């Protein structure tokens, strides 16, 4: 495996066209691939969500049958979690970590190429079953058991395509693990002289900790799907009660992965926001060290809260109390972060360029999501809320107006560095305001229908929920269409149409990435930069 410095010879004969992308070991190219892939999955997953919202526009069954509806919720969740959010953050890591720590490339460039190129095939496999289903092949043709694929729905009762699903989850897992290893090796071994750990930008810190989480839990997910596979085909009974196994065990294994996984999807976002707010408040980040410790404690705590997803499954009282208090404890370091962001803005000379708008929206809306999470953590209350739209509202606030908004913030912030031109202001403003309003129209009423008892994952609902659902669907279509504006912004930048960006593209921006020209040249830091 070649290391970063060992491929100096690429300088003179960089391949072009398809080959450039297929064989690239350059962190910027691979970052770009990841980001486009993530966006494509975001649109594909979004399309599935539009099917869901079309069916739920009115009570009664109009548009799809319930079986197909279940496939939509399942594949929507999988595509968004594993296809849009995770690869999106990996793309940002690829682009920005070497630039931020003064490294010439990622430490294991060839592995980097592999970890990206596995992904499109993983999703080809998964999405192929949706195409088969849409065109009437097999019934049901696509996985239909929810993104959490609980046994026995996914074992005894899983459709044939479950095996495709298992294969594709394995591939996604291998890709993430390789990506995570690359981040850790790069951060440990390739920092420029003088870039001590406690001088690293928070985006690098949060990604380092995320990478450790990934290596700890993606193999557990791989273990879970492997057990499913052997239960399905090789006569084992890990999750099969008839053979002495236990379906509840599945939930423990899944959520042991699943809860750290939700932090994998939010920690890098914390890093992005911690980069953007100081820039536009023109003040250094408040409480840098406490941010690092808060991130580390969130990561550690995330291993001891998984059963808050399973309160209704039944647990001894002591266990229930333990998981309830641990879950509530996580809001302490999370609160520290929100406090620090607000304190950074306090008396800063704030301006509200696009990245800052997204960042502030993130802080407010993510906090809303954290608050509903806190409500769900209260066990007796969760008995009422569990598996209702209240949970759906919770995790969409933290994931869409949280993780996804942070990626929009990151894109608007770093697009000048990536492309050399400033993102189109008019389209950007439209995209922001349109998304901000529609995302709340889409997800806020879900709290109400959830509290009133509307269960999630059903293709129909009781008449009393009709008005809310109508507006939720309108919000959904509106939010979906708004994302085409972002597509336009990205395409314009890729075509270099726009105001030329200076090296330091934002007035108050600090950090090594702003010392290199915009767009960042194909090779940076052949000689390590000076870290002050």
């Amino acid at each position, binding site marked *: 495996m070649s290391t970063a410095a060992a491929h100096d010879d690429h300088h003179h004969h960089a391949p072009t066209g398809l080959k450039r992308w297929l064989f690239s070991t350059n962190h910027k190219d691979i970052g770009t691939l990841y980001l486009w892939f993530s966006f494509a999955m975001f649109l594909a997953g979004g399309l599935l969500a539009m099917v869901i919202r079309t069916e739920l526009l009115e009570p009664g069954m109009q548009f799809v049958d319930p079986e197909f509806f279940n496939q939509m919720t399942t594949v929507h969740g999988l595509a968004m979690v594993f296809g849009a959010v995770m690869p999106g953050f990996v793309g940002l890591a690829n682009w920005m970590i070497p630039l931020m720590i003064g490294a010439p490339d990622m430490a294991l460039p060839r592995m980097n190429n592999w970890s990206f190129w596995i992904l499109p095939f993983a999703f080809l496999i998964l999405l192929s079953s949706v195409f088969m289903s849409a065109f009437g092949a097999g019934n049901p043709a696509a996985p239909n058991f929810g993104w959490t694929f609980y046994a026995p729905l996914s074992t*005894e009762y899983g459709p044939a395509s479950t095996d495709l699903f298992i294969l594709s989850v394995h591939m996604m897992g291998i890709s993430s693990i390789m990506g995570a290893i690359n981040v850790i090796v790069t951060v440990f071994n390739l920092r420029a002289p003088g870039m001590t750990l406690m001088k690293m930008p928070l985006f690098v810190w949060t990604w380092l900790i995320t990478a450790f989480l990934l290596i700890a839990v993606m193999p557990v997910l791989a*273990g879970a799907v492997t*057990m499913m596979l052997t239960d399905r085909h090789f006569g084992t009974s890990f999750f099969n009660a008839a053979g002495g196994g236990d379906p509840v065990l599945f939930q423990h294994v899944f959520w042991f992965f699943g809860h750290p996984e939700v932090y994998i999807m939010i920690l890098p976002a914390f890093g992005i926001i911690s980069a953007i707010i100081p820039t536009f408040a023109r003040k250094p980040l408040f409480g840098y060290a406490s941010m690092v410790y808060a991130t580390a404690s969130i990561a550690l705590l995330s291993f001891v809260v998984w059963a808050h997803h399973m309160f209704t499954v039944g*647990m001894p009282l002591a266990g229930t109390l333990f998981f309830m208090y641990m879950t509530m404890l996580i809001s302490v370091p999370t609160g520290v972060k929100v406090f620090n962001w607000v304190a950074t803005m306090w008396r800063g000379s704030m301006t509200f360029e696009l990245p800052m708008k997204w960042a502030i929206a993130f802080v407010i809306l993510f906090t809303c999501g954290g608050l509903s999470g806190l409500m769900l953590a209260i066990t007796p209350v969760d008995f009422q809320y569990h598996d209702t739209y209240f949970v759906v509202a919770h995790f969409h606030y933290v994931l869409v107006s949280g993780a996804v908004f942070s990626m929009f913030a990151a894109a608007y912030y770093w697009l000048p560095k990536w492309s050399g031109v400033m993102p189109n202001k008019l389209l950007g403003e439209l995209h922001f305001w349109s998304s901000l309003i529609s995302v709340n129209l889409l997800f806020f009423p879900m709290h109400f229908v959830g509290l009133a008892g509307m269960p999630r994952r059903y293709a129909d609902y009781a008449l009393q929920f009709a008005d809310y659902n109508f507006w939720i669907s309108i919000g959904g279509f509106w939010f979906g269409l708004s994302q085409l504006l972002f597509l336009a912004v990205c395409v314009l930048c890729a075509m270099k149409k726009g105001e030329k960006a200076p090296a330091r593209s934002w007035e108050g921006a600090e950090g090594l990435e702003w010392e290199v020209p915009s767009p960042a040249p194909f090779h940076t830091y052949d000689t390590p930069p000076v870290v002050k």
Partner: protein
Amino acid sequence: MSEHNLQQRNQRTLRKLLIWAVAMFGFAFAMVPFYDVICDITGLNGKTSTTASTEGPSQVVEDRTVTVEFITQRGEGVNGDFTSATRRVEVHPGEITLVNFFASNPKSSDIITQSIPSVSPGEAARYLHKTQCFCFDQQSLAAGERKEMPMIFYLDPELPRHINTLTLSYTIFDVTDRVAATNN
């Protein structure tokens, strides 16, 4: 640092992380026996002992009455009846009680069944002792057979005071194919 050194360092870090990933894969499987142990200790998920209890009760607590309810369910592949002679009994802790269960096989071929018990609240599982149960072994049902299957139990006199009702649920599964597969 020379380039060669850096390469070696990268490889070393890579190896350590890979070992960790493989270990975590193993950990997922280690969770299986670990889960069983936790279930044994805490009664998590209402699992009762899978073997007959050999000791009798130390005493009968006459001044305390506990309701025991029975639920029967048919799992995958079973289409015969599965019921208990009674749906609820009132017992004193320490009192030995017999309850009959019935299963039938309307199919034209013999089947082998396995019943899986579960107690709610899970906390009570350890205090339910069975001296005989059809669930300890697989039960074969000939074509058209209706079988009486006894279960004898007593509640531990130590049963915590706040538990006044407990529910014992059985799910019956057709494991004919499973048994055939392991015999081959």
